[in-house]
């Protein structure tokens, strides 16, 4: 029981972090960024390269992965998304192609086989027969810190509120003197950084291989959609529902682990398309 509680909390924190970067783009740009999974991939591999192949300090590896994710996000916005913006299916398809291209780039550089990441913080804590690797604990604490920071950033700062405004009504925001392009750039940058850092933790939680981005992408999508677009609280709550559901189901039958997440997405999308906590769309 305690084992389930602790593992559920650890996994949910990770999912919340991954989903947060995705929800930012989805709510501000209304862009379904399928290449978001590629940030996770690039983040994981960048950390592996910098800290395990070049032997830089681990904290520097995480930072560099974040920077790389940020650059990637900005480049993608400038070169790809901006050019096809307005046509949703075009953005989805272009980002899907990009994700596959980046995946093969990783295969080309690092090979097809999976890599094992050394734990970011070594050591294991035992609490009443439940083993908690420090790495997972650190990942959870960092993701909570980032989430709280992000929540206050979006709520309290001028830029954060401008992001909210653009996500609610782009025209209204433009009339109020908000430069949508600048806000979009900031959002894509933050999203890339969050994705890459999430990727480092996710890779150390599972393993590092070129196809690792698909499962967390689907989970991020599930969390965001079930939680409701633009709702940070909703994202947080649903990340915990999905995380705990996976842990409980896999303690009962590990093979069915992902099935309920998929069923949840399908059911919620069909029955309540705006999500559990989302607001009505303004057209």
């Amino acid at each position, binding site marked *: 029981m305690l084992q389930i509680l602790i593992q559920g909390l650890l996994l949910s924190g990770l999912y919340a972090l991954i989903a947060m970067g995705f929800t930012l783009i989805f709510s501000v740009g209304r862009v*379904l960024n399928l290449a978001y999974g590629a940030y996770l991939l690039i983040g994981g591999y960048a950390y592996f390269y910098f800290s395990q192949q070049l032997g830089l300090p681990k904290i520097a590896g995480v930072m560099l992965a974040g920077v790389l994710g940020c650059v990637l996000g900005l480049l993608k916005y400038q070169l*790809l998304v901006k*050019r*096809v913006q307005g046509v*949703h*299916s*075009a953005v*989805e*398809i*272009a980002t*899907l*192609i*990009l994700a*596959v*291209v980046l*995946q*093969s*780039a990783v*295969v*080309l550089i690092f090979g*097809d086989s999976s890599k094992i990441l050394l734990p970011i913080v070594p050591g294991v804590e035992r609490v009443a027969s439940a083993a908690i690797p420090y790495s997972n604990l650190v990942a959870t604490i960092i993701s909570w810190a980032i989430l709280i920071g992000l929540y206050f950033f979006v709520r309290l700062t001028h830029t954060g509120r401008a992001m909210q405004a653009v996500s609610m009504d782009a025209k209204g925001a433009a009339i109020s003197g908000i430069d949508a392009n600048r806000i979009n750039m900031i959002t894509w940058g933050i999203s890339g950084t969050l994705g890459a850092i999430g990727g480092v933790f996710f890779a150390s939680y599972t393993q590092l291989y*070129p*196809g690792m981005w*698909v499962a967390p992408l*689907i989970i991020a*999508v*599930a969390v965001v*959609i079930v939680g409701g677009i633009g709702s940070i609280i909703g994202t947080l709550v649903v990340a915990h529902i999905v995380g705990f559901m996976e842990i409980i189901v896999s303690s009962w*039958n590990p*093979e*069915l*682990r*992902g*099935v309920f997440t*998929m*069923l949840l*997405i*399908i059911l919620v*999308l*069909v029955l309540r*398309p705006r999500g559990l906590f989302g607001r009505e769309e303004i057209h």
Partner: protein
Amino acid sequence: MNLRWYHFAAWGALIAAMLLMPRLVDLGLMGRGTLRTMIQACYLAMFAISWDVLSGRTGYISFGHPFLIGIGAYGTAILSKKFGVPVELSIPLAVLITMIGGLVVLLPALRIKGSYFALVTLAFMELMYQLVQVIRPDLTGGTRGLSGIKTLTRGAENGYMLAVSLMLAVALGCWLLMRTRFGTALWALGQNEEAVSGSGLSTIRLKAMAFLVSAFVAGLAGAFLVHYNGSLAPRAMFDINSVFTIIVAALIGGAGTILGPVLGAFFLTFLLEWLRPFLPGAERFLVYGAVALVLYMYQPKGIYAIIEGGLKRLWGRA
């Protein structure tokens, strides 16, 4: 339908050219390997046509097309291998089951559209992938999949003739269907759904028809592909790369046209083959994807539109 003499001429020329390909092998102008590559291209072309009927026209982008293909493939494989149903019966049955699967995908499309629909279809595919391995692995073969499925043809030439006749029949059938009022209505659905329902047409019925036609083609091609390969594996079937290949083939060729996806499928399959000597593994998708991305950004309407534009220019100048 508005058919003209040059339509008949163009289709006649295409069918004749495709059916005469094996003669090139006899003459020594082409290797047998090329014929096998063309078989792959034919099946990819059918999948792309199926995707195009559903997504290229109506704007309901499906990211889960392998869901439908997989039902057809698993359907006939299980029926023929595990229950001893003759292939003549198991393929039509599998196609029928796939069409029921198409109606399952239709359910979300009645309420949601755009990005949300794309996601549900992706979730359908992932769900299918996980369920196939868990539920009744004695029937589905679990993670390993099935092998030793009865093959219909022997040798490259017979396989090619079967694949190409199927592909041409599907292409011609869909092309004719899309020239009817139904095809026009589907295209209008993609432009403006409110306007279509405002004109007194039932959008539900139109969507249902589109999903059924798409599922029919997907199931048919999936079933015959299994009986050509003789095996199937869940990881290769329900893979994001296979979604990617189908969508890119339809888009690069030209979505919303029937010949476009066929062109795209042949172009991409041969591109992948030509890259093989230089890049043996999954790295090929790097070049492949980059070519696709550049072509898509340059001309979202695809090769078909590029050729059409070129022809118009020639015509205009001459």
